[in-house]
């Protein structure tokens, strides 16, 4: 049996960046629509089962009701059975359960934060990340039909990793203990509370560590990207310190917001190399855009980039490979 | 002396106060360039600009609610509902908010607001654009209700309505809008003061709005038959000029109440009950009411004319008690 897992985060895409910038809004009913297209495309390619994460908006149920009502659902659509906490932990848990179940591809709908949570729950399941969040770096904007086809191809193929990139990730340690991970960026700000969670105020940002960066992405990784480009295939990361001195760069730190930022220091981080600093004041480390890790004065912080992240499906590549394998031929 | 249409009287009343006080504004559906559905505010946008003569979306609840909120915070808004029939859509804001706020809040909030309400049948507009709904509003403590019948009263009552610190419901009769009459005074007309349009000895007709003219026509015909009819135009429905009614009825001993509304539950019933309760000793005959047919307003002109109370109906009513 070939199955795919679908995690759609009902909470993505409503944070404060809609107020402080011009961020995209995708409501939950549209997420349901995207999921319908994923399911139908995967079913069309020959996937037998789609497993959904349960969530507070009941996206999986809405997809099932609608497609059954239209008489177009033929694959087995299931919902993981667990008690919802309505936090990011649901995503971690669902990803773990899906990997254990043996899904051939995990499709995640949300923003950078949702993908980060999913990655915490998987080891080697191919991941396809679809953007429904806040103008993200990690998930890609793509049509649900394409996503469904790509996920199906990954699930049906013997070695989908040929069509994936093995991503880097950032490990955050405080006083030697692993506290969390980030896929794209870990940003140190002098906030000391999570507040509205998202970060958007460049005045408060002191340091940025990225696994990859490019000016064509939105967020604080773009600050590093405006300074030096690091591709997902490069075997290093970048660490940037901000300050009132230093070279000024213009970076798209939020949707529609190009802000001048001064970079006082920037250096490459080899894979496995620790970027260390001692916190002088209380601060927060934002991971992929959300304030997550609280740091007290005197804490020893270390950030390390390694190529130990998820296997990310490259849709165009896998769909081309699917053609070579004759997956579109009518049997 | 100046000749003005009823619509011009309304417009002039609004304009006078808007010239004097930047806090007086007018808003409603299509009141701007379009000039209001009946042209009453035509040209005002040119004088006062689109901020103060403001087109609103078709949202009656928000229109009246905006009047409530802006009146509570320093403006003296005039809100227009295109037809008084649309009251149904914004009724909560009038009845539960505008009318009650001063009282509920122990007198701490004033709502100096005017709601303009074009009313009445005779335009072939059928059942949802022709009603006379004044009884709904006179029923509500906290609201004041006026209903002018000529240009001078339209102007003077508008001035007073704007000056009043309470929500004033300002009915405008649609078939009177184009009617010209003399305006001798540009002064405010106090609320609660009716006027005698024709003096008489044998019977008092108490009315307002368009029926003032029907009553005068009937009075003319009855005079030919030797009956002397006194016609009172109430102008204000609340507060009500009870003194004027008492004075007249104690002279004529007969009262006929004429309104365009359907009689059941109508304001005419309130007036006639008041006369029965307070002036019984002066009456030589029962108080009679004349209203519209007890139906929705029909469309076809022949039906609509039949629906509305006419001078002939008034004559018939008068003869019942003469």
């Amino acid at each position, binding site marked *: 049996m070939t199955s795919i897992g679908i995690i759609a985060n009902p*909470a993505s895409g409503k944070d404060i960046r809609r107020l402080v910038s011009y961020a995209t809004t995708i409501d*939950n009913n549209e997420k349901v629509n995207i999921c319908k297209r994923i399911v139908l495309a995967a079913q069309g390619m020959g996937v037998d089962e789609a497993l959904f994460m349960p969530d507070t908006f009941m996206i999986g149920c809405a997809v099932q009701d609608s497609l059954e009502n239209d008489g177009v659902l033929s694959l087995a659509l299931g919902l993981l059975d667990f008690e919802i906490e309505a936090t990011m932990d649901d995503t971690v848990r669902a990803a773990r359960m899906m990997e254990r179940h043996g899904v051939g591809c995990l499709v995640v709908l949300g923003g950078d934060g949702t993908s980060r949570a999913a990655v915490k729950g998987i080891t080697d399941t191919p991941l396809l990340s679809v953007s429904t969040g806040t103008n993200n770096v990690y998930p890609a904007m793509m049509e649900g039909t394409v996503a469904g086809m790509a996920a199906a191809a990954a699930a049906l193929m013997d070695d989908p990793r040929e069509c994936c990139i093995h991503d880097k990730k950032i490990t955050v340690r405080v006083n030697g203990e692993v506290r969390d991970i980030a896929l794209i960026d870990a940003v140190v700000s002098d906030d*000391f509370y999570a*507040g509205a969670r998202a970060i958007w105020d460049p005045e408060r940002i002191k340091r940025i560590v990225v696994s990859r960066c490019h000016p064509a992405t939105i967020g604080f990784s773009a600050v590093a990207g405006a300074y030096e480009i690091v591709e997902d295939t490069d075997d290093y990361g970048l660490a940037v310190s901000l300050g009132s001195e230093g070279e000024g760069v213009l970076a798209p730190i939020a949707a529609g917001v190009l802000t001048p930022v001064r970079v006082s220091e920037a250096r490459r981080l080899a894979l496995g190399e620790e970027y260390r600093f001692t916190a002088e004041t209380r601060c927060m480390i934002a991971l992929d855009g959300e304030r997550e890790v609280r740091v007290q004065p005197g804490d020893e912080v270390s950030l390390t980039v390694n190529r130990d992240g998820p296997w990310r499906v490259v849709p165009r590549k896998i769909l081309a490979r699917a053609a070579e394998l004759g997956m579109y031929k009518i049997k | 002396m100046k000749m003005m249409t009823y619509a011009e009287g309304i417009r002039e009343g609004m304009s006078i106060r808007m010239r004097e006080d930047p806090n007086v504004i007018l808003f409603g559906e299509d009141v701007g360039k379009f000039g209001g559905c009946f042209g009453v505010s035509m040209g005002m946008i040119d004088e006062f600009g689109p901020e103060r003569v403001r087109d609103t979306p078709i949202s009656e609840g*928000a229109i009246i*609610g905006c*009047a409530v909120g802006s009146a509570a915070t320093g403006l003296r808004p005039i809100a227009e509902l295109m037809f008084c029939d649309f009251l149904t859509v914004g009724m909560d804001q009038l009845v539960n908010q505008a009318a009650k706020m001063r009282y*509920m809040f*122990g007198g701490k909030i004033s709502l100096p607001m005017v709601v303009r309400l074009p009313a009445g049948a005779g335009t072939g507009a059928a059942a949802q654009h022709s009603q006379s709904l004044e009884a709904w509003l006179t029923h509500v403590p906290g609201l004041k209700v006026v209903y002018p019948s000529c240009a001078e009263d339209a102007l003077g009552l508008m001035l007073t309505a704007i000056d009043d610190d309470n929500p004033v419901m300002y009915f405008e009769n649609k078939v009177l809008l184009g009617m010209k009459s003399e305006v001798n005074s540009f002064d405010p007309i106090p609320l609660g003061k009716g006027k005698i349009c024709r003096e008489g000895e044998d019977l008092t007709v108490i009315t307002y709005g368009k029926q003032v003219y029907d009553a005068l026509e009937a009075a003319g015909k009855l005079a030919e038959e030797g009956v002397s009819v006194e016609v009172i135009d109430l102008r204000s429905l609340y507060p009500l000029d009870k003194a004027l009614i008492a004075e007249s009825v104690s002279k004529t001993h007969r009262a006929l109440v004429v309104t365009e509304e359907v009689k059941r539950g109508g304001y005419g019933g309130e007036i006639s009950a008041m006369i029965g309760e307070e002036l019984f000793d002066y009456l030589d005959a029962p108080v009679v009411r004349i209203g519209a047919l007890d139906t929705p307003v029909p469309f076809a002109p022949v039906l609509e004319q039949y629906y509305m109370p006419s001078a002939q109906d008034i004559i018939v009513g008068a003869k019942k008690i003469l």
Partner: protein
Amino acid sequence: MAISKEQMKDMYVKMRRIRDFESTAAKLFAEGKIPGFVHLYLGEEAIAPAVCECLRDDDFITSTHRGHGHIIAKGGDLNLMMAELFGRETGYCKGKGGSMHIADRDKGILGANGIVGAGHCIACGAGLSAKIRGTDQVCVCFFGDGSTNQGTFHESLNMASIWKLPVIFVCENNHYGISMSQDRHQAIKDVADRGAAYNIPGIAVDGNDPLAVYEAAAEAVARARAGKGPTLLECKTYRQHGHFEGDPAIYKPKEEQAAWMEKDPMPRYAKFLVENGVMTQEEVDAVDAQVAQEIEDSIAFADAQPFPSVESAVVDVYSDIVEEVRDR
């Protein structure tokens, strides 16, 4: 927009005042001291204090039937509130309004409101007024998830958007419209989504975290003051009690109630303040003691006030008509 430690403390004081006022109101209602209905703000204390922290005295708010919290947060006087709940002559409304109709024009409080969905339009009016009068005042409209199914909500968001009114629509999503849970009463989970239909930024924050609410509200207020138009700010929270006192809330699942009690804003915020050195535990205790005394004092004040004379029933129907309304 950075928040100062003083503001953080001030929010705590107001949250504590609300919690104690409401807990006391619940007790007094059960004892029969308060007539009528009371709808309590218990569980939602993080919202109004955080939003009002972003406001000036001359800014406006519109409130709801669940209004005590808004009024306290905007600076309402506890003595006058309690006296009003007791139906006394010297209460906020001279005993004519009660719990659901407290207003204080001098503090910009345009009234609690017994009609669900009525405040939205009134807030637009206040916003229009500020715009026409050329001030930079703003109006915050507080409302619940239930009211977003009223036509007035949609009319008002549309009007505020096209006129760029300085109105901040703050939805306190407590997940219930009376007894009907949000997933039963509307086909969306995030009221914030409705902003997009009116070209208004719609954002959702943790309504049990005053710092999250403050950050968002501060940006929304700044945006409104700058003439950039309205914001729809949804604060996710939970109504810890029933719809009104006396409602046993049998329709609320026990697990749901328990999960939200874990997220109770009061202990959570106090813990944050102490852990991060904003306040010491002693300072927190001192605030608690001081607020407890304020509430005690308000009860004593209210108890000592006379009932209104029946003569006063005819006053304030109109500004100028008094004796005429005595007729019955």
